[in-house]
């Protein structure tokens, strides 16, 4: 500010600058406030939408837990109709797939799983839907279709489950060698923590593997 030598000159410069710029300054402040307020409103309405979905989801889960599939299906339909942009829709279609499987309607179960595979907002839910789809295909004896689906999974998180499913399918196909390989991979990648869940998963896998028999060369432990 050394360019201005006196205070009068500085004041004059400020006044001049103000005259030239007050419109754009005021405009800027107004637009800024509008964006902030509008954004806040948009966020609020968006979160309100998600909160409604959350509420419907809770009601649906309660119905599932108290064994009321019709009520659960009603809520699921609501979530799948109006709330497809929320994560609750994906979970609703998983729920419908379960309900349909329980009533032995595998075709309907598949269409719900297909929806989740294509439309769920969470990639993890898409992946889980894929695995469940493979399980239904196994029950329908569509082994190759199920295997192709499982082979298409490149993500790691559910690897133990995916390999176990492959093993189940190979067992159904009568291919013991491939089944054994798949079960062995599943055992190797299974969470090693000693908690209850992994322990039970490990036991069941081991039983399946044992049932395929082992090599007959006598060794110390054979």
């Amino acid at each position, binding site marked *: 500010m050394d360019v201005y030598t006196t205070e009068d000159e500085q004041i004059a410069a400020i006044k001049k600058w103000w005259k030239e710029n007050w419109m754009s300054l005021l405009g800027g402040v107004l637009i800024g406030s509008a964006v902030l307020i509008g954004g806040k409103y948009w966020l609020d309405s968006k979160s309100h939408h998600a909160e409604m979905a959350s509420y419907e989801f809770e009601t649906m889960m309660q119905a599932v837990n108290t064994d009321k599939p019709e009520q659960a299906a009603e809520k699921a339909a609501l979530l799948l109709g109006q709330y497809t942009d929320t994560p609750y829709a994906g979970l609703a279609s998983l*729920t419908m797939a379960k309900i349909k499987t329980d009533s032995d309607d595998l075709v309907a179960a598949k269409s719900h799983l297909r929806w989740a595979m294509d439309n769920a907002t969470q990639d993890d839910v898409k992946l889980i839907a894929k695995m469940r789809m493979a*399980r239904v295909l196994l029950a329908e004896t569509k082994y190759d279709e199920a295997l192709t689906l499982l082979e298409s999974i490149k993500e790691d998180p559910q690897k133990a489950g995916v390999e176990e499913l492959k093993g189940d399918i190979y067992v159904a196909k009568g291919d013991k060698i491939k089944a054994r390989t798949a079960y062995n991979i599943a055992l190797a990648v299974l969470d090693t923590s000693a908690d209850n869940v992994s322990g039970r998963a490990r036991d069941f896998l081991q039983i399946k593997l*044992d049932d*395929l028999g082992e090599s007959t060369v006598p060794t110390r432990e054979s």
Partner: protein
Amino acid sequence: MLSYIREGIQGWIAWAIVGLLIIPFALWGINQYFDTGGSLVVATVDGTEISQQRFQREFYSQRDRMRQMLGNQFSADLLDAQLKQKTLDDLINQEVLFQKATDAGFSVSNESIIGIIQSIEAFQEDGQFSNTLYKQQLSANGETPVMFEQRIQRGILTQQLYSGITTTPVVTRYDVDYLLKLQEQTRHIRYATLSVDAYKQEADASDTAIKQYYESNANRYMTQEQVSVSYLELNVSGLGKDAVPTEEDLHKLYDDRSSMYVVPEERRTRHILVAVDEGGSEDDIAAAKAKATDLRKQIADGADFKMLAEQYSDDPGSATLGGDLGYFGKGSLDPSYEETMFALAEGEVSEPVLSSFGYHIIKLEAVRAQKVKPFEEVKQTLIAEYQQGIADRKFFELSEKLTNLAYEVPDSLEDAAGASGLSIQTSELFGRNGGSGIAANPKVALAAFSDDVLKNGYNSEPIEIGENHMIVLRIKDHQAAKLRPLEEVKDEIAIQVIDEKARERVEKAGIDRLQQLRNGNSNVAEIARVEAVNDEQNASTSHQAEEVEVNNDNAEEHQGKGKGAELALAWQDAGELTRTDRSIDSKIVQKAFKLSKSLDGKPVYGGVVLASGDYVVLAIDKVTDGDVAAIDEAKRLSAKRNLLNLIGETAFQNLLTSFKQNSNIVVQDDNI
């Protein structure tokens, strides 16, 4: 320039600045600007901090739960490390899940959170949510409503993600059948045991072998590391024994405890109630009074009180009992009722009395006079109580002295002993697992072998070994673990060496046997199998072990040196067993279920070493999968539930693991 701003600040510029400041405050609220900064952090998850405060609250509440569950067995020192790790893991898991759930768009309305909080019983008074109680309970727990509400929000969001995955797996008929086929599978098992004992008799242990074993297994022949400790023991019991109270002390105590020794007077009444509704008009009251007065007159004229009560009393509880209320002392009934009741003589009937319920006519039936336990009768109890009080106070004083001096003079107990008047005692030698006397308490061994006490030679911290019963200890004698001399352990080792040799040999013999059976060049197997099958046909349900003597072709071995046990296989038929059968050694069953299924109907052979060293050769004659069609619905349903739960939990666990791998988690060990 500056002076211009100073002047201008009074005017529009000031307002413009204030106006601009208002916008963020108005939009985002003030609370974010008052976050407590600078507190200690135990971990961060993708930049979000988990404060030490939160960690500790969670840790202590888990510990309390543990303490309640384990009761006296609870030992804080032993569990704390594990519990801290678990608490930390839980908090990190929660935070990771919360972040992922929020990112994914899970949300919950404030109304739902409020609804949940209001439904929590701990915050309710007479079935109604009470804001005061809510805040009280939280602050007792060191929490603010904001923190608690966030905790509820976290809980709901993570629970939604969890239940969305774990309660929804598809489980088809095929899956259930597959599980049941395996779970209910039976295998027809025969087995023959080659006993290790038979081989022990001919094995020997040379001095060289013993020495070699001794050297290569030195760690097994170490004496236990042991310590003995000096300690000061302070116990409340006995501290007050010498205190002799004066009569005056005892009388004072007696007066303080009068409520325990005096049973106040109680009176039994009957009454007839003429009810007046709350807020009843003057007229209602007058009508009731008139009715009551009339009833009183009937009684005066000789009517029976009980009959009138049954007929006219508006008190439903007592009317059927002829108006009988039973015994009451002072302070429990309506004041005007009470006053009248205590003014009546036995058998007397009152005039109508107005209480908050209406008009009563009261009859005093009986009086139970005040009962007092006289001073002399309770004197012994009072003395004991007096002494207990003295003992508690003494314990408190002494324990403070003891604690302070044991800490201030850490390399001797003398000062603490002098100040507290306790004498130093010594224990016997004991190891890390404790011993007898005070060492029987696991806390004592733990303290004695702690670094501070054992390595640094300090006094221990006070150890509470019972209620108002503590000790402070220091090491008196330390005996390090050392190798026991060979002579002392020679016999022990000889047994070991022979055992190992015998095990090796029996296993080798067993594997040879198995090889022959598998090669199919031995009659042993076939004869045995045929016999077993015949047996089965004779008594197909019989599960009892059946010994079948079998001749062996291999004459050379057979006639060796009378090694009958090694050669002939004495097959026992265990029958059809399930996976979980425990009627024979579980190792045999486990092995049997690992063997391949036969493709050609011939038996499948296997072998297994038992814990005893015996070698077992086993044969599977038949494998039968669980009969899925015959299994009842209840069992199917429970199998289905198990599968659903297992598939769901596994999927969720894997999801959580991958979430954690994709998060940046930093743990600050120092702050835990």
